[in-house]
């Protein structure tokens, strides 16, 4: 639009600048997407134990990645991307949970921290606790079913810490709850889990 000779190089420079910025942003996005995809297996492992079926877990992970790829600019580079993805995932899972009619969670009674070991010792003798394979008698299906039976508030924390290997602080951030709540849910959740395992495996 300008007819003065001086403006044209300026416009060209601005256009080149904008193009460079776009290209640089596209590179950042691709970098983000690749890093996120590297984490997919770890994200899935956590998701799988938070929902009932493989299909639900796949769907939840896909919804998580769709939202993450749209909202990639809100991720701060250099922070924990796995925790960031799990934050999206647990939010989506909570929204989803509110839509389906759910039965109120029962709060099973919990026993002490030594409960399962004491039960094993009572059934198989104190020396059984020394054996390398003692826990493997609690069958694999037993652990998966026991986790599924945990009330979901407890299960989410147990899955994040014990399967996802997130710290208390990271789990608090992911679930948006205070760290003290993470600790009490984790401790109670593990006790309930051990009680379920004892009932399923040692009767």
């Amino acid at each position: 639009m300008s007819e003065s000779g001086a403006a044209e190089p300026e416009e060209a420079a601005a256009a080149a600048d904008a193009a460079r910025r776009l290209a640089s942003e596209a590179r950042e996005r691709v970098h983000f997407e690749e890093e996120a995809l590297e984490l997919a297996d770890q994200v899935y492992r956590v998701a799988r134990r938070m929902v009932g079926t493989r299909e639900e877990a796949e769907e939840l992970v896909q919804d998580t990645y769709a939202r993450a790829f749209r909202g990639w600019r809100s991720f701060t580079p250099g922070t924990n991307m796995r925790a960031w993805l799990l934050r999206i995932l647990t939010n989506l899972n909570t929204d989803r949970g509110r839509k389906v009619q759910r039965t109120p969670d029962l709060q099973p009674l919990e026993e002490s921290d030594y409960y399962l070991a004491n039960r094993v010792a009572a059934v198989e003798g104190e020396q059984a606790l020394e054996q390398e394979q003692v826990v493997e008698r609690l069958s694999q299906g037993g652990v998966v079913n026991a986790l599924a039976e945990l009330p979901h508030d407890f299960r989410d924390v147990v899955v994040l810490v014990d399967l996802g290997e997130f710290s208390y602080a990271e789990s608090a951030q992911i679930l948006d709850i205070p760290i003290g709540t993470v600790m009490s849910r984790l401790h109670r959740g593990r006790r309930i889990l051990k009680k379920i395992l004892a009932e399923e495996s040692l009767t």
Partner: protein
Amino acid sequence: MSDGDCDKCEELLQAYLDRDLTAREVAIAEGHLDGCDYCRRRYRFEAQLRRYIRISASERMPAGLRAKLAELRGPAAET
């Protein structure tokens, strides 16, 4: 070893394995474990149980999911 010491040791179990105790509490737990087979066996059992839970509840991502996720990416960047 009095039962009170075992109760205290049981109370410290989870935080001990989570490495979430103060140095003083670690010293209390380890001081007791040194002389108490009963608690030592239960700590060991708990550590094995946690490892077992992690391994047996961990399920690999289904084949094909990664490709589905890759399809959700934005438009390919121009080089």
